[in-house]
């Protein structure tokens, strides 16, 4: 076989392999035509979650903001919006979402919706308590403590910095032997690093 024949057969082989890979290994599962908007039934609909179609109201920023304020009652610790768009097995957050939509459709403002939720479910429905009454302790105590400690610390430091500098002690005759001094130097180096 000449060199030219070898290259030619190599190129044909590589092309055939690429074609085979494209048609075989690289083949993706049969997909519907991109133009098609018909939804086919799934082979195993029982093994995938059933889900209602999303509506414009689901993406309404006011609804989203409101649902971020409310805690889902399923015990997941998430807010209603996050739960309904995350935990798709939850039945509570979609129901709470429908309640929010219904209240908004009645013409209630976000604050009125919140008041209605608190009246129905109690204060626990809110992701964060209202900053009033005892709840203020929750919001203000950490900041107040840090601020108080900071002010006290600054006052102490300022008082000390106003004191006249202490006179430097007269250099005492060192009682350390050269080996002690070396050990001390080593210890200092340890600390410095």
């Amino acid at each position, binding site marked *: 076989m000449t060199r030219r024949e070898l290259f030619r057969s190599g190129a044909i082989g590589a092309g055939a392999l690429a074609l085979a890979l494209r048609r075989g290994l690289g083949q993706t599962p049969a*997909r519907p035509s991109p133009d*098609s908007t018909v*939804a086919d039934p799934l082979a195993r609909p029982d093994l995938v979650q059933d889900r209602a179609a999303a509506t414009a109201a689901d993406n309404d920023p006011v609804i989203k903001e409101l649902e971020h304020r409310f805690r889902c009652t399923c015990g997941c610790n998430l807010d209603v919006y996050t739960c309904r768009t995350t935990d798709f097995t939850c039945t509570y957050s979609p129901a709470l979402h429908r309640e929010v939509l219904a209240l908004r459709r009645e013409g209630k403002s976000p604050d009125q919706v919140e008041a209605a939720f608190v009246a129905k479910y109690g204060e626990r429905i809110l992701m964060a308590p209202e900053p009033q*009454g005892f*709840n203020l302790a929750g919001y203000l*105590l*950490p900041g107040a403590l840090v601020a108080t400690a900071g002010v006290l610390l600054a006052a102490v430091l300022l008082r*000390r910095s106003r004191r006249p500098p202490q006179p430097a002690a007269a250099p005492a005759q060192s009682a350390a032997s050269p080996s002690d001094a070396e050990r001390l130097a080593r210890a200092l180096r340890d*600390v410095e690093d």
Partner: protein
Amino acid sequence: MTVLGQFSLWLALFAAAWGAGTAFLARWQDRPELARIITRSTYGVCAALLVAALCLWKGLFAHDFNIEYVAQYTSRNLPESYIFAAFWAGQKGSLLFWATILSIFGATAQQVTSRRHEALLPYVAGITNVVVAFFVLTMLFSANPFERLPFTPDDGRGLNPQLQNPGMTIHPPMLYLGYISITIPFGFAIAALLSKRLDTGWIHAMRKWTILSWLFLSAGITLGMWWAYVELGWGGYWAWDPVENASLLPWLTMTAFLHSVMIQEKRGMLKRWNVALIVASFLLSIFGTFITRSGVIASVHSFTQSNVGYFFLGFLLLVAILSFTLLYVRWPLLEAEARLESMASREAAFLFNNLALVGIAFSVLWGTLFPIISEAVRGTKITVGPPFFNRVNVPLGLLLVALTGIGPLIAWRKASAQNLRRQFVAPVASGLAVLAALLLAGIRDPYPLLAWSLAGFVLGTVVQEFWRGMRARHRMHGESAPTALVALISRNRRRYGGYIVHVGIIVYIVAFAGMAFRVTREVTLAPGQSAEIRSPYGHTYRLTHMGVSQYEQLNRFVSAASLEVRKDGVSMGRITSEKRQHLDSFKRKTFEPSTEVGIWSNLKEDLYVVYAGSVGGTDQATYAITINPLVMWVWLGAGILITGGLITMWPGGPAVQQRRQSEAQAGYDARLAGVGAES
């Protein structure tokens, strides 16, 4: 195997109790000759617990479903990597994992600690043995991993699908390693108090353990964030959940300690504070386990709840009382050797840094416990979620970021006005330049503006420190810039490793602030239909639904929905999200369906797609689509932070080399002196 495992647990309990008892008896009766026996007890405990751990792994891999733990957390078709990880998937296994690792750490501490700190080691052994004994006791009397069932099921329940993620094989052990390794610094602190050796010796002995523990915690927390992000599907990585908060608490106090300990080393100050921080870190690590296991506070992480939490509460209270009593008794011996002299000093900056860190820790703890406090005071149940934590902690966090930049710029003892001017000009200019650029880019949200500007300031500080150090080396040794950089870091690992850690933290802060600009959208699409979502950077993604394919894979049935992604008209490829229904080996459904998120990631943003389900059993799919800016920077920040931490604690360096040289010289001098005397 269960008999051997059970026997090993009892043996470990006996050895730990004997070692701890002997340690305190030796102290009580002043019998230093018992030290070697006490030290060896840690090896015995370690060996016994390793045998117990191997027995549990044997049971897991052998599918011995007569063991309750094996039946509860594995199934025949569970992939092997998850069988391995099932060891710590449940409470009983976690306790055994904790005790085993602690015993390994305890034995290692006895081996690797320098002989200079030998006097502390029996006490350290005693403390680690007490903690191990507590864990083994809890296992034996409340959560025994070798408990047998009265029957043998044909298959196990399997592992929770959310835990069937590569992150789960590494996130919990990493976090546990962080929690567990705090016991060693705690042991050294208590040893110093008990032995009245309260100089800096105990700090030198435990320095690397502290950094190691902090690194494990940092890595564990970030891996937890990554796991939550890719597995839970809610589009974020931090939700201020009580268990997340519990992992953050010891990290904050350890970070405070790593800064304040420098003041003790340099100036002999803050001795009491440092002991208190280490004790607090240990207590908070136990508190984390109490929160996770007791179910006293609602959490998405409370996979397992039992009365074990109350064992931990009792232990927590006992250790707190004993530790702080001991600190109180030794109070006079912990007098500071110097006093703070100026507000404009690095010591003062570190003090304010400690105040901010401990303040945030208090605020997180307060918020976590506030529902219980509120219920006790008002009788009303409330929820304390992310809006509360963000409102309270973000200002404190920004203060901390500012202090991260200020601290390294101020000299020790007292900085002059000229020194302050010289140090602050470039970093402040850097921060202001970032602010101006952001304002020009049209960003008006105050928190991201402030966070990114402060990040610019801190980065300016770090760059200035490196630049000056490299310039000094260039002038003194004529080194090129890369050589000077490497030499600078390798000769001052602690200092420059610390600066690299600061860069890592700043990268985290930049990424966290980016989440203020996230965009979400929920859409339902039939095959061929498209939806658009606009990125905060201005470009638009067009996503076309390609249909749903269904197939069986490993231990699950998968429904995969795909979207073709075009960015401003340019095809970017395909993104797929899955719904997984896990099945046992008899094809029966186990657990609720779980979600696999489709994530398309780059340095700017993540396109995050969740297949929520199908409409009426067809391939018309509902998706939750999110654009999360700067998420990749969280993971990059972790990499930088861990690199810096490893540099900080890497052994060797000039100080060690010089010590070795001078020790060799001392030996040589001694021999010469001996020769001289003989002659």
